[in-house]
C-alpha cells in the first residue's frame, strides 16, 4: 500500500493505492486519476533561474512551459547551470528547447533590460 495526499482540490484526500493500482479513500474520480499518474509517471512544473549578464540583477527566472518527469528535475537543474543570458531579455524567451524530448520548452518568466 502506498499512501499519498491528493492535491487536485482543497479537500486533500489521504489516499491509499495497492499494488494492483486500486485507489482507496479518494472522494472523487479526479483523485484516482491523480494517484495513478503519480505512481506511473509523476510530473512537475519546475521554476528556477539562470545567469544573466548586464542586467540589474544577476539571475533571471525561468520555468518549464509544462510539467516534466519528476525524476528529471535535478538533471534539468544541472542543465540550467550551463546557461548564461545577456540583457536585454524578454519574458518568454526560450532558454532550452524541447527539454528531454518532452516537447516542453524552458522559458524566461521576466523581462530584464540592460
Amino acid at each position: 500500500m502506498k499512501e499519498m495526499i491528493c492535491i487536485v482540490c482543497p479537500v486533500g484526500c489521504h489516499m491509499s493505492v495497492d499494488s494492483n493500482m486500486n485507489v482507496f479513500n479518494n472522494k472523487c474520480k479526479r483523485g484516482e486519476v491523480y494517484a495513478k499518474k503519480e505512481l506511473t509517471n509523476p510530473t512537475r512544473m519546475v521554476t528556477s533561474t539562470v545567469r544573466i549578464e548586464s542586467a540589474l540583477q544577476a539571475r533571471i527566472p525561468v520555468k518549464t512551459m509544462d510539467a516534466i518527469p519528476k525524476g528529471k528535475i535535478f538533471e534539468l537543474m544541472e542543465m540550467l547551470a550551463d546557461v548564461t543570458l545577456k540583457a536585454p531579455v524578454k519574458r518568454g524567451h526560450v532558454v532550452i528547447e524541447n527539454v528531454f524530448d518532452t516537447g516542453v520548452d524552458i522559458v524566461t518568466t521576466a523581462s530584464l533590460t540592460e
Partner: protein
Amino acid sequence: MTYDIVIIGGGAAGLAALHSAYEDGLKILLIEREKTLGGILKQCIHNGFGVHHYKEELTGPEYAERGIEAIQDLDIDVFTDTTVIDISKKKKEFTLSMMNTVDGEFDVKAKAVIMSTGCYERTRGQIQLPGERPAGIMPAGSAQRYLNIDGYLVGKKVFILGSGDIGLIMARRMKLEGADVLGVAELMPYSNGLTRNIVQCLHDFDIPLYLSHTITNIKGKKQLEQITISEVDERFVPIAGTEKHFDVDTLLLSVGLVPDIKMFDSLNMDISPLTKGAIVDQFFQTSVEGLFACGNSLHVHDLVDFVTQESEKAGEYAKQYVKEGSLRQKKLTSVMPGDRVRYVLPQKIDLTADQEGWTFALRATENAQRGTFKIYQGDALIMEKKARFIAPAEMEHIEVKKDLLVSNEPLKISLEVLA
C-alpha cells in the same frame, strides 16, 4: 507640485490601485523605492499566482509584469528608486517627503494618498528565540532574495522554522540549488501552507515536517552550529525529553508578516491590533480622511489575486474621493470578529452609504472541514453562510447585502464549526 493621488509602493497592490484610479485629467504619481516596479513578486519565481484574477497559473514575475504592462502607457508620473520618509497632513492636503539620488530630499503635495507599501517579515527578535545569536539566522524572504535575484545560497545545511508557504517554497528552492534541507518545524498542529506545497516542496524531496514543534535552543558562538527542536503540548509549552538536534549552518524563519506602515506614524491613523495595519471603512479609507490602504500593508493576504481585487477597489474609491471632495461618513458602525474569527475587514462601515452591500475579508482561527459563518447585528442573526475547508492560512470573503440590516448596531461575524 500637487497631485490628485499619490500611490506609495509599486508592487501588486500599488499597480492595481493605480490602474483603477487612473482617469484622464487626474494627476497621479506612483512612488517605488526599488529601481523597478513589481515589488516582492519579482523574487517569488515559483508558480501558482493569478488563478483567480487572470484565470491561469503564473509565476510571480509574470504576474508582476502583467500589472506593469497594464499601466505603462498611462499618462502618470512614476518615481522609481525613491523612498518616502514622512507624510504629514494639513487641512485637506498631504505633504509627502521623499528622497532619491537625483533630487535629494524633496516634497510633493497630494489630495489623496494610497498606501500600498507591503509588509515585512517578523524577525528572530520579535519572536524571541532562545539560545545564542550567531550568524546564519534570517527570514526566509531574505534568503529568497539572495537566491533568486542575486544567485547566492545563504547556507549549505538548512532548517526552517514555520510552515507558511514561503518556508515551504524556500525548502524546495534551497534543495534544488544544492543545499541540504534537514526539516521544517511548525508550532501549530497543522501546516500553514497549501497542501500542494506540502506535497511538492517537502514530500517530493523527503524533507520532514515536524508539526507541534518549536525551537528550544540555538548553538553557535559565531556561525550557527546546531538547533534543537522540541515537541509542544496543547498550550505550546515544550515537552521535556522530546528534543531533537540538527547540525545546521542556517535557520530560515517563516514566522509571519507584518504590514510595513511605520512611515505613516506621524499621521496618527487608527491601527488594528489584530492586523497591525490601518483600520479602514468600506472605501478602504483609513481614519485619516483621504488616506487609503490596500494590499499587504493593510492586512497580510494569502493570494496576490485578492491583493489585486482589493487594491482595485481602493483605487476606485480614492478616485471618487478626489472627484467628489469627500467620502466622509456621517456615522461609522463597527464590524467585529466573533468566535473563531481572527479579524474582519473593513472594520468600519457607513451604513448610510449608497451601496447595495459589502464584501468582508476575514480569517478563521482554526481549521475546519465544515462550518457556518454567522453574521449578527447586535443580537440579531441576520445571515448565515456555509463554508468548507476553512483554514487560518486562507482568507474567506463574505458578501452581506444592505437590505439584511435590521438596526444601526455593530456587526459581528462568527464561525460555528460542526462537530
